[in-house]
C-alpha cells in the first residue's frame, strides 16, 4: 500500500498531475509523455521517478525504452482523497446543522 501522503504530495505539482493524467488513457513511453509538455525530457523522467516512488505509476523496459503506466495498486491515493473529502464535507454539514438552526 503506497503512502497516501506521498501520493498526494506527488500529485500536488501541476506538471506531475498532468503527466499522471496522460497515463490515464494507457501506458506510454517517456518521449510520448513529454511531447507537448513545457518541460524538458529529463525533467519528465524526474517527475516520473517521483510518481513511481509514491506508488502511483510503475514502469517496465521495452527494448531501449521505458514504458510507464498507472499502478492500479496505488489505491492509497483514492482512499486519501476520500478521507480528506469526508473531513471537509462533514465539517460543512456540522456548520449547516448547527448554524442555521431555527432559521427555516
Amino acid at each position: 500500500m503506497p503512502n497516501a501522503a506521498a501520493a498526494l504530495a506527488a500529485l500536488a505539482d501541476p506538471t506531475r498531475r498532468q503527466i499522471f493524467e496522460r497515463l490515464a488513457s494507457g501506458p506510454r513511453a517517456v518521449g510520448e509523455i513529454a511531447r507537448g509538455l513545457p518541460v524538458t525530457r529529463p525533467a519528465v523522467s524526474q517527475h516520473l521517478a517521483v510518481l513511481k516512488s509514491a506508488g502511483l505509476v510503475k514502469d517496465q523496459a521495452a527494448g531501449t525504452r521505458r514504458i510507464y503506466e498507472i499502478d492500479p495498486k496505488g489505491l492509497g491515493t483514492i482512499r486519501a482523497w476520500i478521507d480528506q473529502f469526508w473531513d471537509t464535507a462533514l465539517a460543512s454539514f456540522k456548520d449547516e446543522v448547527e448554524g442555521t438552526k431555527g432559521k427555516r
Partner: protein
Amino acid sequence: MSSPTIRPAPVRKSITVKADAARAFEVFTGRIGSWWPRTHCIAASPQKDVVLEPKVGGRWFEIGEDGSQCNWGKVLAWEPPARVLLAWQIGADWKYDPDLITEVEVTFTPIGGGATRVDLEHRNLERFGDKIETVRNAIDSEGGWTGILKVYAAAVEAGASS
C-alpha cells in the same frame, strides 16, 4: 493467476452535532445541497445543487448551473432518522460508473443533551481497483485485443494461402 488483493481500510468518520437525530438526518439527506462542498463536482458545469431522492432506489445526483444532471449514485437503504446507505458510483477516473458500487453508510445516534453522533463509513474502496483490473482483463481477454488479433492473424493467414 490471482494477484494479491489490496484491500484499503474503509474510511470512517465520526462527528457530533448539536441537533436531534431527525434534524441531523433531514439536513444530511434532504438538504445535502446546502452543505456539500461546491468544489467537488464531476460535471462540466459548476455545481448548483445536490439531490438525494428520499427512498430506496432514489437517485443521488448533482445539478449544474446549466441545469444538466450528473449521476453520483443511489440510495440503498432509507431508514430515517437512524440510517441511510448510499452507493457512491464515481470511479477512480471521477466519472459515474453504474457498475461500480462503493457504499457510504451514515448512522445517526442520539447521545443525549439534544446532540447526535453521526458516523460515516465509506467502504468497498478496493472496488475502485477491481474496476481497473476489469478493464485490463477485458483488454487482455479473448474478447479483447487478444481475440481480435487472433481473428486478424487467421484472416491474414487465410488470405495468404488462398
